[in-house]
């Protein structure tokens, strides 16, 4: 086939939705540069979006995994809050060290993943209701661990928190004319690693492909000899693990523990996944899309605030409109599929 003949029809659903997402993102960003100028012309603005959303990227990756298998996990925001609080308390009140706190974060995430995964996969309980309870539990537990929000003063941690990775060649002179290097936080590096690893995992490993198989049609997957229950279980465990990593990255970014941390993060993560082309019904989705989904949400927020609109409500509305748009696109894609 020659390139001339290329048409959208030849794309798989995953790639079609992915393409839409990426196009929308770049149109949006270029539009922002054209019409708003200002900060958007600087690469650092983009890196700031990354910095602020590193944790969300990781959480969204986890959610995408679960959504690709046809499930959902709305506990990730709560787990993030719980992790940041536990780590903060541990570091500040008990003089713990950073690496143990990282292990603790992963442990908490895994524990949630395993528990919820077991209930969902092996007891056939609706994932929505069980992870809803998980979210309740994590949020409540956060307050029980410690009520007050506080910043962590632990030295080793603060040092880690302030570690910056300079992005060469992307810097820009500030208003004093001093050249400032563009940088990203450590969390962004982790997030990008996660995206790459998860992308490879889903794209090239057998387990990754069986995620798609289970989400696409679990009956068929069973017939093809895939252990559907175990696959579902693993998807939740991985989501939990990523929530653990994401929680720690979040903690690293904010450097404080608070019960109010990451409120609505689960909804943002779901929205990002959807915008990134993950199909709610399962079987379709792409981690790269999710990555761009998060960036799209972050960019919208930036556009809204630098346009001088009252951010609190405008960003809410624009996000919802975007979500609605993508849901309808998915619905149309589904209809197209059924007709064919």
């Amino acid at each position, binding site marked *: 086939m020659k390139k001339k003949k290329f048409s959208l029809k030849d794309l798989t659903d995953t790639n079609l939705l992915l393409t839409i997402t990426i196009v929308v993102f770049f149109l949006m960003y270029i539009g922002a540069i054209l019409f708003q100028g200002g900060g958007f012309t600087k690469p650092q603005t983009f890196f700031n979006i990354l910095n602020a959303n590193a944790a969300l990227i990781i959480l969204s990756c986890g959610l995408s995994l679960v959504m690709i298998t046809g499930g*959902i996990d709305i506990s990730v925001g709560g787990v993030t809050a719980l992790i940041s609080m536990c780590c903060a308390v541990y570091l500040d009140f008990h003089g713990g060290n950073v690496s143990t706190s990282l292990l603790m974060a992963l442990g908490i995430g895994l524990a949630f993943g395993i528990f919820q995964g077991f*209930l969902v996969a*092996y*007891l*056939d*309980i*609706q994932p*929505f*209701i*069980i992870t*809803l*309870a*998980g*979210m*309740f*539990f994590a*949020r*409540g*537990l*956060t*307050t*029980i661990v410690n*009520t007050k929000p506080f910043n962590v003063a632990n030295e080793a941690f603060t040092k880690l928190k302030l570690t910056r990775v300079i992005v060469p060649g992307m810097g820009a002179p500030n208003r004093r004319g001093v050249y400032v290097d563009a940088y990203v936080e450590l969390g962004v590096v982790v997030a990008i690693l996660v995206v790459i690893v998860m992308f490879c995992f889903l794209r090239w490993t057998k387990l990754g492909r069986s995620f798609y198989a289970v989400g696409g049609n679990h009956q068929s997957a069973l017939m093809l000899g895939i252990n559907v229950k175990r696959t579902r279980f693993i998807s939740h465990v991985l989501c939990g693990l990523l929530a653990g990593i994401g929680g720690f990255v979040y903690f690293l970014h904010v450097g404080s523990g608070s*019960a109010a941390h990451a409120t609505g993060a689960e*909804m943002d993560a*779901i*929205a990002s996944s*959807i915008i990134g082309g993950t199909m*709610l*019904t399962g079987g379709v989705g792409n981690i790269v899309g999710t990555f761009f989904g998060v960036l799209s949400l972050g960019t919208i927020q930036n556009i809204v605030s630098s346009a001088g609109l*009252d951010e*609190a*409500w*405008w*960003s*809410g*509305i624009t*996000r*919802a*409109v975007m*979500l*609605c748009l993508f*849901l*309808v696109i*998915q*619905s149309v894609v*589904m209809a197209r599929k059924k007709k064919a």
Partner: protein
Amino acid sequence: MSKDRKTSTGSGILTKIVRNQCFIPLIALLLLVAFNLIADPGFFKITLADNSAGNPVLSGFLVTILDSGSELAILAIGMTLVTAASGGQDISVGAAVAIAGSVLLRVLCGSNSRPETLQAPIIVAFLVSCLVAMLFGAFNGVLVAYFNIQPMIATLILYTAGRSIAAWVNNNELPVISEPSFKYFGEFIPGIPIPTPFFIAVACMIVIGLVLKFTDLRLYTEAVGINQDSARLNGLDPKVVKVLSFVILGVCVAVVGLIKVSRISTINYSVIAKDIEMDAILAVALGGNALSGGKFNMAASIIGAYVIQFLTTTLYKFHVQSDALPAYKAVVVIILVVLSAPKVREWLAGLSKRSMKKEAV
């Protein structure tokens, strides 16, 4: 065999009671009552005293439960219908309450956010907010029924945008109503010692009771929820029924909006009815209604709502931080859901059979 049959008929009444859907929430209620009786009988004390306006009013924990549980009970009505018809839940009710309340205030206040007098009769304002809430309900319903989006995800849109829309309706101002009669809906009507929200809740229950009695709502909803294909072959339009259930939830939302706003005579967009959707879903689940749709028991849901309020108030009384409440509720949910999972039930049934056999041996 014959022996078996005898015992089963003997315990028939008991089984009937246990089988009744109201059984679980009622047992939960009894447990809570018993717990409070043991821990502190003062919990049940109700006192009659004059409030600042010189009206004798009742106060005490029980009154608090009836009062604060009203919103939840009203929402549980709508949520039960949505759950039954669509097999999913609406997570945008909290945000929708914010919109309804905001619209209500907007109509009452006009352009001035601190009016001396109301700019419109309360009933008109309520009807407008009702209409708006129904529209948003229909929006959710259309996404669910016509676009085939899972209810939880479809309502995620409004969940994200709702509070922003609410703020936008009033230009992000916080209007305050000084008219005393507006407070009647959320507090007390002079001369009546029982909080008004309770009456509103009772009125809603009566209305839904009458609707269920004098229309086909129950049959239609259940038929669609249980077997959509079969319902279609019987001439029903599952899509219309689903949208209808969301619209009814919209009405419930508007009523709750009225109460919530009236309670404080103003609104706080980010806090009003926060997390109430979770409690409403919990109420439905606690009432023994399958979250996957189908048959429903309205009374059980309503009792479920009050049980949750009972739990909340009890926890408050024991100085549980309000933010820690969800943890306790979550434990309750997990236990309930796990116990009602078919697999666990099978396993338990097998277990009891085995133990019976052992006894027989």
